[in-house]
């Protein structure tokens, strides 16, 4: 049974085993760690977005594609020197396909301690049906 389909960005321009991929807009994206839990009433998606403030998270839903983008500021604070190799700045991006098992207009989100939690309420037909015993 399929609930949420996931597909990766269409092109990955990287020749080393780094986390980042680059897409057409030349912005480096990395897929964050995430988890999907199947609850009775809803699907719960938890996305790890460390270093991203709530206001830097954008969540959009279009044509069944749910996209989460989290920008992290990786600038070295003034007066400080970064040790080791300069880490490339990147944004987190997660794309999930949402089908009609989900009530799209009731999707809600909440962020705490660097983890974004999306609640995707199920349509009635998708909820488990209890069967009474006579």
């Amino acid at each position, binding site marked *: 049974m399929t*609930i949420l389909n*996931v597909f*990766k960005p269409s092109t990955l321009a*990287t020749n080393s085993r780094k986390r980042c*991929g680059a897409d057409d807009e030349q912005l480096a994206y990395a897929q964050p*760690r995430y988890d999907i839990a*199947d609850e009775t009433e809803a699907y719960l998606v*938890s996305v790890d977005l460390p270093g991203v403030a709530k206001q830097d998270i954008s969540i959009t839903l279009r044509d069944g594609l749910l996209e989460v983008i989290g920008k992290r500021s990786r600038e070295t604070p003034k007066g400080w020197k970064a*040790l080791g190799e300069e880490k490339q700045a990147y944004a987190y991006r997660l794309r999930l396909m949402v089908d009609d098992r989900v009530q799209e207009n009731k999707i809600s989100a909440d962020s705490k301690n660097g*983890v974004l939690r999306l609640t995707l309420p199920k349509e009635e037909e998708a909820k488990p049906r209890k069967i009474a015993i006579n």
Partner: protein
Amino acid sequence: MKYISPFNARYGISPLSSGSFSSMEQEFENLFSSLPSFFDIGGECFADPEQRSLNPVWYEHDDAYVVQLELPGVEPKDVTLEVGDDALSLSAKRSARSNQDASEDNLSYRHSLPIPEGVDADQVTASYKDGVLSVSLPKIAAVKPRRIDVN
């Protein structure tokens, strides 16, 4: 390199009642093994089965070193941080992601990080924001750069 298009190839992922990361990772490894793996970071972290790298980033100032570690999903009070002679050790428990997880082994972080010499262990402080732990390691006075006047 495989080209994955939403129109001609959709990979269905079956729901996981356990809600754990590790089997999702395995499914991804199997499906997308020709692509660079996003989940395999590889660091010097100690065992927790998910092999989460905390991605330490170091900065230096005249007075102190700072290291930032990624620790999403913990409450600051659940973090245990200890400073030894040449290493920092950290452990923290993540909050359960959903009600289903409650009875399982919650994910925990355990990490030991080597630190530079010349750190004043008594003055180490840490703060936590948006899933990132910043540890500030002040330098012992003798290690700070000292201006030398030239006559």
